[in-house]
């Protein structure tokens, strides 16, 4: 994989506007994605599945073909993929529509993004579920011994990350999914930070639901996917209902469609879906194995770079084998926001600082006030990491 050549596809990088290390928040978009979105508006711009004219048919074709591509990207069937706005909506859909009539316990961890934690906490506030936490260690790893003891036959749903947005570390999903299924519990995976960075195979993973966003994997904002086993999707209650979610409507009697259409109320984000499919094509062309390899190299270099800076402390495991190219850290004596802002001012390096919409996670990692996060992707290079290291060294002197 040649990152230098890939960079030519990204207008922002080509213009030399920034060293972009904030891909965990949202990634940059290649021109192929932008062109695909534009193609919808220029060539179709109709409504899918409703009108019968040529433009509508063209829209339907583009939209459904995008569903096929996005589903194939995670090795799922098209009918298993529900278009949503983003991962947050997908997680809300499952957590709020799941059937808790027999079991009320939801298991999750402190390490989750607010988008996963908050719907559960809201359901608990309403008395619908009982939230419990799987044990995690201060370095962001799991207390694997406790998993089997915590998941039991009262567990309805295990909702958990694939990869955290705070340390880039992965959850032991195989083990968790097996134990959950052995106990009759469903598993919802927050794949926002996993799907873009590793070849996630939904079928092999065996989870019931997988949520991810388009904009974190080179796609447009405003589009995401909920992938679910057909039988699991059918068990979910309705979420957003409206046009195109029903077979027929009579006052007092509604016949809903089958999933995934049942969950796609109203006119959909066609351009977004088409753009996301283009992003899937783009990543598939690179090959997710190559993406993973590239990120491993970057993670190793990034960890070495940050560790070499006096006063720097990395959160999570220092092993690059256990994480994606995402490193959260703090510098002694310099506040995280100041570090991020100064990197931007001094070297146009775009970083994230704060608690990353994961406050309990940052508290459990020992950074309740927050940290700086550098998250890299296919277009980043080791040369950029070298400049980042030089910049950090200058800033670190302020606190030493």
């Amino acid at each position, binding site marked *: 994989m040649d990152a230098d050549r890939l960079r030519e596809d990204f207008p922002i990088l080509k213009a030399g506007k920034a060293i972009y290390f904030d891909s965990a928040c949202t990634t940059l978009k290649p021109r192929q994605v932008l062109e695909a979105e534009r193609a919808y508006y220029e060539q179709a711009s109709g409504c899918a599945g409703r009108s019968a004219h040529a433009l509508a048919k063209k829209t339907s074709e583009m939209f459904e073909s995008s569903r096929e591509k996005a589903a194939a990207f995670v090795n799922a069937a098209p009918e298993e993929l529900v278009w949503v706005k983003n991962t947050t909506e997908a997680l809300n859909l499952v957590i709020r529509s799941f059937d808790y009539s027999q079991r009320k316990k939801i298991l999750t961890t402190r390490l989750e993004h607010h988008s996963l934690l908050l719907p559960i906490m809201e359901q608990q506030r309403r008395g619908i579920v009982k939230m419990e936490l799987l044990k995690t260690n201060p370095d962001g790893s799991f207390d694997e011994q406790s998993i089997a003891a915590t998941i039991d036959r009262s567990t309805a749903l295990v909702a958990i990350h694939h990869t955290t947005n705070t340390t880039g570390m992965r959850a032991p999903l195989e083990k968790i999914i097996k134990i959950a299924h052995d106990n009759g519990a469903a598993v919802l995976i927050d794949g926002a930070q996993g799907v873009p960075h590793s070849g996630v195979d939904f079928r092999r993973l065996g989870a019931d639901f997988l949520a991810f966003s388009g904009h974190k994997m080179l796609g447009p904002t405003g589009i995401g996917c909920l992938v679910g086993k057909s039988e699991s999707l059918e068990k979910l209650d309705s979420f957003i209902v409206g046009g195109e979610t029903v077979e027929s409507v009579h006052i007092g009697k509604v016949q809903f469609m089958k999933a995934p259409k049942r969950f796609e109320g109203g006119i959909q984000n066609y351009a977004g879906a088409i753009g996301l499919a283009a992003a899937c094509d783009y990543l598939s062309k690179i090959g997710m194995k190559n993406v993973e390899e590239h990120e491993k190299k970057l993670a190793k270099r990034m960890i070495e770079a940050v560790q070499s800076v006096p006063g720097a402390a990395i959160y999570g495991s220092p092993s690059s084998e256990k994480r994606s190219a995402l490193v959260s850290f703090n510098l002694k004596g*310099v*506040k995280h*926001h*100041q570090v*991020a*802002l*100064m990197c931007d*001012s*001094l070297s146009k390096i775009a970083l994230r600082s704060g608690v990353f919409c994961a406050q309990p996670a940052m508290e459990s990692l020992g950074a309740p006030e927050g940290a700086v996060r550098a998250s890299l992707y296919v277009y980043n290079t080791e040369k950029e990491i070298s400049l980042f290291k030089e910049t950090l060294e*200058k800033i670190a*002197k*302020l*606190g030493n």
Partner: protein
Amino acid sequence: MLCFIALGVFAFLSLFSAKYRPLAARAFSCVARKMTLRPCDTGLDEEIKAASIAGIMKFSPQAASFVNRRFAAFSFAFTLLFFASFLLAAQGIANFAIYGNCNGPEGGFCIYSGIQNPAFLKAPSTLQGISAGNESARLTVFEFGCYTCPYTRDAEDTVKFMLEKYGDKVHFVFKPFPLPTHPNSKWAAVAAACAWEAGKYWEYREAIFSNQSYYREGGDAAFKATAARLNITGFDGCFDAKKFLAQIETSISEGKECGIYGTPTFFVDGKAFVGKDAAAEAKAEVERLLGVA
């Protein structure tokens, strides 16, 4: 602390460009929280700190480190300086509006004087006013003056000198331009005109300049008492009838058309001189033109 400065700066810039308004709003929120002893939550203070330290670091990492460690103290000092300079600037503007000089009646260098450039003034086109010297002289000197203004008074000795020494070569025209900021200035001009009609103008003029505060505070009674002391007949009737008020108003209008913004203003062969040192500068110009410098 710097959000106090940011509020002032961005609020001012917001008057001219909407892009600064969100920043002003953030600064206001920050100030409001600081005033209620809560930490700023808009992040603006951190952005200012980071931008400042990064800016210094580009020139000197050592200086950046020094400032970073003492940033709170520097912020406090700069905020105090900001408020002090703001108050001084406001005082200067008020003085400038009232006295035509940012230092007040005492005068001195005033940076705002640059806003009002004598080069943009237009010489009067009529010879109406109090005339002295040689009316057929090639060189005409105009003075727009205010009888109760300290600067016009201070110019008087130089005016007298010019009339005595170059009166045969210069035509001098005084045009009353009473400033509203000086009490009774317009009535002093009316009174002086009545004295002129009675042939006692220069005596009356000297009387006013010799004790301006008496006329500023004394008003009609002071003007009449002086006329009585100088044995000016018919003064009270002239003054009470405001006989020359219209003429004074015409002179004011002419001064405004010329762009007069302070007294005294002299025009020497069309070139303008304004303010405290105007008389001396006008004299020097007269001497240059007469070839006696």
